């Protein structure tokens, strides 16, 4: 149980960090797309700012998304152990993707600006998938031991 909880927390943190990173770069891509120059220093500064600054809203959303998504994967994986990796990665991917789609449907607006584009939305799925991958690796070690 402790290992599962620790794996979940690690998955949330990593998915959050990658998600925030993708959001940050998506926003900067929109700015440079308008013809404005963004230096490497400003880009790196934005990553630090965004990863450290999105804990109020985005981090809880990621935590809830994975909290809902990973147990679904667990239910599938328990009866199909060979699907363990793909199951958790897919669950993480779909969880974060669904979070943004649901938010847009409820609010009528994109809560996260970078998800207005398909690539920005898919990048959020990738962040969730990375979280799912990490959960799979970390929570699975107890069996290997």
């Amino acid at each position, binding site marked *: 149980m402790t290992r599962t909880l620790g794996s979940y927390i690690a998955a949330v943190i990593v998915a959050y960090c990658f998600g925030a990173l993708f959001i940050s770069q998506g926003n900067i891509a929109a700015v440079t797309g308008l*013809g404005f120059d963004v230096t490497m220093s400003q880009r790196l500064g*934005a990553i630090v700012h965004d990863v450290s600054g999105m804990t109020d809203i985005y981090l809880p959303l990621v935590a809830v998304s994975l909290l809902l998504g990973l147990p679904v994967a667990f239910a599938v994986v328990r009866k199909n152990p060979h699907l363990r990796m793909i199951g958790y990665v897919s669950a993480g991917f779909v969880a974060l993707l669904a979070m943004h789609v649901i938010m847009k449907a409820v609010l009528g607006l994109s809560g996260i600006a970078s998800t207005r584009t398909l690539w920005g939305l898919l990048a959020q799925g990738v962040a969730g998938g990375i979280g799912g991958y990490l959960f799979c690796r970390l929570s699975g070690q107890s069996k290997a031991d």
Partner: protein
Amino acid sequence: MALRSGQVQRLDATGQSARTLEGLPESYVLSQGGYFDITLDPKFATNQRIYLSLAHGTPEANGTRIVRGTLNGSRVENLTPIFTVSPLKDTPVHYGGKMQFLPDGTLAMTTGDGFEYREAAQDTFNLMGKVIRINSDGSIPMDNPFADGGQGHPAVWSYGHRNPQGLVFDPDTGELYSHEHGAKGGDELNRIIPGANYGWPAVTKGVNYSGAYISPLRTAPGVEEPLIFWDPSIGASGLALYQGDAFPQWQGALFVGTLVDSDVRKLTFVGDSVSEEILFTEIGERIRDVRVGPDGMLYILTDSDQGRVIRVVPDDLSNAAASSDQEN
């Protein structure tokens, strides 16, 4: 007064009686939609023309529109749409819609970025996120900055705005001022210069509601800096220039209502800087608009289910009225 229900009312000078204006087109009422602003023709005394800005369209395709009509009692007649922001959008927010006649008889209006279409504010061919300037019949003046259409839409006066909620002209200085809502932080007051870029969304003092940068650029070459900005946001709403006689100490000051802080800001220019004073906190309601009446009094419109029009009078008049009430 424009109501949340989409109706427009005419309040009599005593503030005791309000009549709903008849004959107006139905506005698109959802979220921030409805009617936005009402202004009188500079020659209203002879032509009775009024101009109203409103959300027009459907959930799938809506935008800010100006209609012109003739006021006959509580009825608006001969209504004609004279301008519609294009392209239409599918969000019910960020319309702008504040209007201001300029001394040459042209009409300026703010437009919003529609929230989901923030990049449109930097597209000079797109009318979202702009201050536009038209003639009173809707035609486009030949001296607009992009009048030839080669570098932008001929109606565009300035660009790079988010959701401007105030517009006022100072006849003494010839300056046009506008304020606009930032996202999280970044509400700003700007001096509007024809053809100028005000930065949104590439240059802003605010951040996304998620906490992420909208842009790491807070300044940039070729982008006008605000005269003052507010972080955290105050929800600037309504903008009035005081030039009346009732409050000599307010002469030349700008007044800005606030939706978030529920007060009124008095802004005074001191050289190149702007000093700010917070007033009327005792009202305790979201302030939707601030105007100066022809009587020199300040009128404050509150935003709630039981919204009020509050008339601010000098102490001596207030005391005289109180004495009169007691005698009666």
